């Protein structure tokens, strides 16, 4: 699940708010600071008064979407009973939220406090206690009440009439039939059929191969009552419609408050989700600078990666780094540490600009127009991974004029090493020249020499801890460790190294640790050592 998917509002109202949010861009520093302050103060409150927040969540999770009903009000159309119920439920929920908010010692942002809908609640839920229900009560219309009473009385009389008839038939059938029952008599029972046909209480309905079917025939009195009842029912439906119409008219006067209340609850829901995440991550409020400056990250983690690492029994080391140069290079072993670092940086900055407290103990930066992240997995089908990279780079360059956080992950790995390296260096040089005064580039690679060639800061993923004592020849002999062992011993921290510090030559060590046949490892070591420092080129024998 992506982080965005984890932000899961309890109500459809919250989901509406979530779908409308936009990140804050350069120029909106003050607004973002206010937003982040809100989240920070609410997350502190959550730690102090968790009960308040769970009470609110309990209400939020029951909310129904009232917008269809509100639109009908705006269009001055009548609501149906279920729609009125939805509004009654909204009013009830608002009452509960307001009372929880009032009783708490928390300072609530005004846009999350719904306006009172008490009069609506009283109008739609008269004499109510407990769970809200709505129906067209007699109390809404005395005439309706009268018609209903009369209709029920006549129905009872009708039932009595028909029951009398049913009693007559009992002697024939040996049992009392239901009033509306279709009675089937076997044709072979000639006597019974004859009798039934002669009974004034029974009317023949149809004949099948084997049976003749009868129904209780209504007496004249019963027929008269049926007509009355039908007329009364029509009147009743009409009067109920009138009640719905005048209730809708009453509610129309409240349409703005209802809408405000709905949005307030949605905002509350969304804000609570942000606060909840901040509590879970023990996140801190980042510092947003107005002027372009260094990007300082402390104690940062990627929640997804951390979960995975800890799930495998490893210990996750958080990331800290300070980027004060337009271009910086990240190198490290082939175990995904580089990608994870880039992703963590991108995630923290993005989350902050989307109004969340990012998963780190400290972040200081100035806002970007965009964050670009091209991870290892190639995108488009039909293109080689290198070709996809080139296409993606072209797209990136269309935004060169804006201020971007550009995270490049091993560009050029899918092609001839010397040309790949050259291309990568050229791309970085270009970005530095054209966008160096505004954008920040973090470029990971497994090629040696990129940092020194460009003379830029060089960060390295700490990698497999060498002095662990577990990496022994005997391990290879015993079939080696498993891949989880490697992940567990991976240190994801970034350390600043010199521009010339070599890229970790860890592939053979990894193979050795995992127990690949010793003969192969030895041969590979020979190839590497042959003719001094030889990079194993395809076009030149060593």
């Amino acid at each position: 699940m992506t982080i965005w998917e984890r932000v899961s509002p309890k109500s459809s109202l919250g989901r509406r708010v979530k779908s409308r949010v936009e990140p804050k861009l350069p120029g909106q520093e003050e607004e973002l600071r206010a937003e982040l302050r809100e989240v920070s103060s609410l997350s502190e409150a959550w730690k102090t008064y968790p009960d308040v927040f769970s009470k609110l969540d309990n209400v939020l999770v029951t909310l129904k979407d009232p917008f269809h009903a509100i639109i009908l009000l705006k269009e001055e159309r009548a609501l149906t009973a279920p729609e009125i119920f939805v509004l009654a439920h909204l009013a009830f929920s608002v009452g509960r939220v307001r009372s929880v908010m009032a009783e708490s010692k928390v300072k609530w942002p005004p846009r999350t406090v719904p306006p009172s809908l008490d009069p609506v609640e009283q109008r739609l839920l008269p004499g109510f206690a407990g769970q809200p229900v709505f129906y067209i009560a007699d109390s809404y219309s005395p005439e309706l009440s009268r018609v209903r009473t009369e209709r029920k009385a006549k129905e009872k009389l009708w039932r009595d009439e028909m029951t009398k008839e049913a009693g007559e038939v009992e002697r024939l059938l040996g049992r009392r039939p239901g009033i509306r029952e279709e009675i089937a008599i076997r044709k072979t029972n000639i006597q019974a059929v004859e009798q039934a046909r002669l009974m004034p209480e029974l009317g023949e309905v149809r004949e099948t191969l084997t049976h003749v079917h009868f129904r209780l025939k209504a007496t004249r009195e019963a027929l008269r009552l049926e007509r009355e009842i039908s007329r009364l029912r029509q009147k009743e439906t009409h009067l109920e419609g009138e009640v719905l119409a005048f209730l809708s008219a009453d509610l129309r006067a409240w349409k703005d408050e209802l809408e405000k209340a709905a949005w307030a609850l949605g905002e509350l829901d969304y804000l609570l989700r942000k606060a909840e995440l901040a509590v879970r991550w023990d996140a801190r409020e980042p510092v947003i600078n107005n002027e372009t400056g260094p990007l300082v990250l402390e104690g940062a983690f990627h929640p997804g990666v951390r979960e995975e690492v800890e799930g495998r029994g490893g210990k996750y080391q958080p990331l800290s780094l300070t980027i004060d140069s337009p271009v910086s290079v990240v190198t490290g072993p082939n175990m995904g540490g580089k990608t994870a670092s880039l992703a963590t940086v991108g995630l923290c900055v993005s989350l902050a600009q989307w109004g969340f407290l990012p998963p780190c103990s400290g972040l200081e930066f100035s806002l970007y127009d965009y964050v670009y992240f091209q991870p290892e997995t190639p995108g488009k089908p039909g293109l080689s991974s290198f070709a996809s990279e080139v296409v993606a780079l072209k797209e990136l360059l269309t935004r060169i004029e804006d201020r971007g956080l550009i995270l490049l992950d091993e560009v050029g790995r899918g092609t001839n090493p010397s040309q790949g390296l050259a291309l990568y260096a050229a791309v970085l040089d270009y970005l530095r020249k054209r966008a160096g005064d505004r954008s920040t580039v973090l470029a990971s690679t497994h090629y040696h020499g990129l940092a020194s060639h460009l003379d830029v800061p060089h960060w390295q993923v700490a990698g497999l801890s060498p002095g662990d004592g577990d990496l022994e020849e005997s391990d290879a002999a015993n079939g080696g460790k498993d891949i989880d062992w490697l992940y567990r011993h991976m240190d994801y921290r970034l350390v600043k190294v010199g521009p010339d510090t070599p890229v970790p030559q860890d592939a053979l060590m990894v193979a050795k640790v995992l127990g690949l046949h010793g003969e192969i490892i030895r041969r590979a070591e020979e190839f590497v050592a042959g003719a001094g420092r030889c990079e194993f080129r395809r076009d030149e024998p060593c």
Partner: protein
Amino acid sequence: MKYPDLSDLVLGSGAGSVAIVGTAKNVGKTVTMNYLSAALAGRGLVVGLVSSGRDGEVTDAFTGEPKPSIVPPEGAWIATAEGVLGESAGFLEIADVSEKAGVLGRLVIGRMRESEPVELVGPQSAKELARVVERLHDFGAQVVLVDGALDRVAAASPGVTDAVVLSTGASAHSDLALVAKSTAFVVELWSLKTPGDPDVLALARRAIESGRVSFLDEIPLAGSSRHDGSSLAPDNTPRYRVRQTAFDTVLGCEEKVLSQAGEAAYVVVPGAVSEKFLAEAEGMEFRDSFAVVAKDPTALFVRSEPPLPVYVAHEIRLLAITVNPVSAGGYSCEPREMVDAVSLEVYRSTGKRIPVLDVVSGESNFGEVYGVAVG
């Protein structure tokens, strides 16, 4: 001696939810539901009613004949689509409206203020049905009746209801013997049992929950490893390990799935089990005791007896069979005849004495007359 009626059987079972499943149209399912809900309400219980799919249409869409509607008793809780309620729904105290809308609008839950005919339209998926049943209980219903049919059999799944009543009748087939045989077949299918070995059952249930087709391989006794999903025993009974595949269904890939069976003792299928799958499995000549474990009997889509052993992770509890001896157009027979024929055939096929009742005439057969040997 007074024989129990259908409401006695339901109350005696302690079931909080009962599915009423019809084998065909016009078999008296609605009459059964009305009878049962009235009887339970008459005994002071609060009843809940929901349908899987659509039922209680006022006239038969095909024949144009007036069909009995569902008439919930006063005070009953119902769930149905707002589209069939009419604007005012004057007879209903609305207590809940769902967020998701189906073709006929959102699902409304409410309490009947008076007894009125109503059309019940509900969710088709087992998961959603189960949720609605739970909601009805939350609102105070003590026994929830779920209307279902063989072509929307989710209602009968043990994940949705605690027990089932099967409704059949002359409308199902043109001839009494056929009605009895086809009913007995359903009962036979629904009588599938859980595997005898409790460890196999536990592993199968877990495998089903994982949502993946899985195989249970027997672990060689010497040096049984403590791996995830294995069971250990100090005695000599076979022990098993779960081997999950990447498949979440067997439909359309029966052969591919079975090609991974290897030496497995069981294949556990989380979803529908088709006839094709069973036929392929039989054709593959696995070890003699190779068996299929399905989620529950409603997951089996077969028209005849399975060709190899089939178990279920959850059994169905069949409380009774109701019969309607009157068909819509053609053949009909005496209530006594049908009740006896069905009861006997069910006993012959399954050895079970399932109560068979005609709620209209009151005739019933509890199978007490069947001796040990049946000629």
